[in-house]
């Protein structure tokens, strides 16, 4: 089975996000005074062949732990969707 995978990587709560903080300070300069809690992360998309969704998810989780994310400072969310056969 073939799956499309989307991994969203964000800062762990409590870890300072310098990009988010800088953007949050920049927005009021453009007149947007009502914005808070800006955070910047990464979005990784990939295609994976696996026997089923659970196997795909387990492998992506392992890849996140080992390379795609740094669990010391980052959290990640994995979305797995089976590709249509069409």
């Amino acid at each position, binding site marked *: 089975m073939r799956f499309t995978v989307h991994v969203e990587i964000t800062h762990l709560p409590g*870890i*300072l996000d*310098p*990009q988010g*903080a800088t953007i949050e300070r920049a927005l009021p300069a453009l007149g947007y005074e009502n914005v808070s809690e800006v955070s910047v992360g990464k979005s990784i998309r990939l295609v994976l062949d696996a026997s089923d969704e659970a196997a795909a998810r387990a492998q992506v989780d392992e890849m996140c732990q080992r*390379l*795609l994310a*740094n669990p*010391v*400072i980052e959290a990640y969310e994995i979305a797995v969707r089976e590709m249509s056969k069409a």
Partner: protein
Amino acid sequence: MSARVGIVVFPGTNCELDVAYALEALGAEPELVWHQDRRLSGIDAVVVPGGFAHGDFLRTGAIARFSPVMDAVSELAAAGAPVVGICNGFQVLTEAHLLPGALQKNVGLKFLCQTVEVRVETDRSALTSTAPVGAVLHLPINHFEGNYVCDAKTLDQLRAEERVVLRYVANPNGSLDDIAGICNEAGNVVGLMPHPERASDPILGSDDGVVLLRALLSAARARTAA
């Protein structure tokens, strides 16, 4: 006998010759080690120098961690040999879990290239064993990702075990607890953002880095003799 220091070169590393020059001037035998090499035979100490290993893609040091040479570096570190990561090398050592925490983008998102003051906080690391604790050194920094972070428990541990090696006198990058350098529990693995090799001769504006490099070489020689 002079210390043989392996200097790891990844694609994108750019400080290896500066480190080799500075160490050679102090009587060491530097040896450049390509990242594909799996063995570090006859090497007394390792420096992972600055640069942009593997282009710093994904995260600084994230890809470099998987270079074949890193297994040999980890083995030497576990055996007690001095292993020092400078700047990008520090980032590589954290990604390789040889040092705790991580280095992320500077507060203010500025690439910093300036000379800063750092204070020697402990003499129990391979890089500061012969340095006077409390001494303030003038060393260049040259980084975008030098903002040290770790969880509260790790920070408590670093403080309690005297593993904060260097602190900025005036924090330039937002680093937690003004941390400029740390070491592992045994003190033989050290990571620091400032570049001691670029402060190794008065003609460079400062030779304050020499005290650190000398300590590294004496730790390396002590190991050879043992």
